[in-house]
């Protein structure tokens, strides 16, 4: 695949520098080969999809879409032969085109094309067949194709976010596990709010979710199937279990279990079975997260006297400290591309999120606190989602790119904490 060369900054050394200017991308309204009333219906779907694509790409720090203009109509044959000079004149470096066509079976064909305007050549194309109700997902997929063609990274638009939806405060504070599409659509509440719940973690393709509930009086990990809403405990019995995370292939779950004074990292088959202990330190070992190839695990331990980040092999061997900064480091999450580990840095008066390389170099803090926590990766490995308390102390969700841009709030109905961002859906 051919890619535009973007002036990407080197992370770590340049995270405090000015972010690179985004690539301007034109997204004229999707067209349709259909005519008459049907054609008008397809153009209406195309216009809605065009706005979703533009909104998706506007969220990224690398791309800057021109505002779609409904009068900027083009004919169906132009989808494969755009008038590049027109978009060049508008200042665009890249272009998304496409069409929506009705099928005899009532479904839609959705075509998506990405072009390099300067060089006048196609970078990517893809077609989808889907039901009328699925046009929004097709638009997210199209935005993802454009993002990948222009940046080389996986798109993050057809993904899900799980988090703890928070209402009220103090005695009236209610927390429920919520799942939504990454653009905020299809918002669902998974738990009823009667029990305190923490740290939802989606399985790799977002079909299942592990979370912690205090329903039995002690923190316990439960697994819920999102399609059937069926629930089961991760382990039988009443042991204190928390901090669950799936392995990249979804077959295992790493978590913490407390016995008496001692908290260690364990691993168990996602389907259930006998847990295997991976750490034996008398200190608190928690927040394990697999490397994307599943061969290693990063976790947090206070065995040195303060919370620090450690790596180990997936069988628990070869434990090695990687954080040595002048603070405590906690809550690691390994990036999908394997290059970075996100963390919470605990200073004397502030918690902030940042990233460090698995070899312990390139540390960079990306948020300003004072009570940030729970960083989780975008599928692109180019942005983090995290919990940030606003000035009134209410927990909210923020998103920050790795290139040094400012964190931006994520739209959710009310308060939110403990975010988790899935990979691309099937």
């Amino acid at each position, binding site marked *: 695949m051919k890619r535009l060369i973007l002036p990407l900054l080197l992370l770590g050394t340049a995270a405090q520098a000015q972010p690179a200017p985004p690539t301007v991308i034109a997204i004229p309204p999707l067209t349709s080969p259909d005519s008459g009333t049907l054609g008008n219906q397809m153009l209406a779907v195309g216009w809605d999809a065009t706005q979703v694509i533009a909104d998706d790409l506007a969220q990224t720090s690398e791309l800057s879409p021109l505002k779609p203009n409904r009068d900027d109509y083009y004919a169906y044959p132009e989808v494969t032969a755009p008038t590049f000079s027109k978009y060049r004149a508008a200042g665009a470096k890249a272009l998304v085109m496409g069409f929506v066509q009705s099928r005899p079976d009532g479904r839609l064909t959705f075509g998506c094309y990405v072009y390099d305007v300067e060089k006048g050549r196609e970078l990517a194309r893809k077609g989808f067949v889907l039901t009328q109700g699925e046009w929004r997902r097709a638009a997210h997929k199209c935005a993802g194709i454009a993002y990948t063609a222009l940046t080389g990274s996986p798109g993050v638009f057809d993904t899900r976010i799980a988090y703890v939806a928070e209402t009220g405060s103090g005695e009236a504070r209610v927390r429920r596990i919520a799942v939504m599409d990454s653009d905020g659509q299809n918002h669902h509440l998974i738990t009823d709010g009667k029990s305190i719940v923490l740290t939802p973690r989606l399985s790799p393709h977002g079909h299942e979710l592990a979370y912690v509930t205090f329903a039995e009086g002690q923190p316990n990990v439960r697994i819920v199937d999102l399609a059937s809403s069926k629930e089961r405990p991760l382990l039988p019995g009443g042991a204190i279990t928390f901090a669950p995370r799936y392995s990249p292939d979804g077959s295992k779950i790493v978590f913490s279990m*407390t016995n008496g004074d001692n908290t260690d990292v364990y691993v168990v088959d996602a389907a259930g079975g006998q847990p295997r202990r991976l750490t034996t330190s008398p200190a608190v070992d*928690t927040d394990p997260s697999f490397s994307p190839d599943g061969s290693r695990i990063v976790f947090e331990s206070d065995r040195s006297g303060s919370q620090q980040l450690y790596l180990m092999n997936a069988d628990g061997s070869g434990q090695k400290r990687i954080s040595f900064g002048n603070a405590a480091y906690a809550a690691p999450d390994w990036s999908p591309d394997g290059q970075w580990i996100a963390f919470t840095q605990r200073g004397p008066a502030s918690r902030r999120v940042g990233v460090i390389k698995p070899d312990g170099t390139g540390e960079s803090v990306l948020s300003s606190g004072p009570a940030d926590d729970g960083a989780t990766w975008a599928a692109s490995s180019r942005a983090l989602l995290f919990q940030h308390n606003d000035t009134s102390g209410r927990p909210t969700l923020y998103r920050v790119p790795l290139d040094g841009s400012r964190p931006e709030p994520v739209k959710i109905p009310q308060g939110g904490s403990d975010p988790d961002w899935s990979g691309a859906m099937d």
Partner: protein
Amino acid sequence: MRRVILMFAAAVAAVASTASAQLPGLRKYTPADHARQQPQAAPVLQGIDAERAEFAAQAGGTTVYFGIGSAILGAPAKTVLTAQAAWIRRHPDVVVRVEGYGDTGDTRDHAVAMAAQRANVARDYLLLMGVPAAQVSAASFGKERAGLGRAVTILVR
């Protein structure tokens, strides 16, 4: 440094109010805390509420406090737990649960482990003071309820 200031604040509070001396710890007590610790004069409490009030009064409080990031019992905490143990041993029919709480500044999951450790340390001290294991359990609430790091002994039966 911060801990020194907190201890100083607690000392000032203890001098200012004799009531605070019943619950030595690492923070300044508010009127709300004070009210919570006082057995209600009227209406007359019955059943477990009456027993809870008696337990709190005679054990010198239900709550012990920890320094930030610590699960070590200080001398004031041991005094309270010793009095709690004596009362529980005089009431072999009761069951108590020690609830541990983490620090609000901690990260989510580390706080769960710290809270469990605090509850367990307090429970172990009750056992050391002769309370039968069957009468006392331990639970962790992480940092999910407001207040400073502490362990609270709750009469459950």
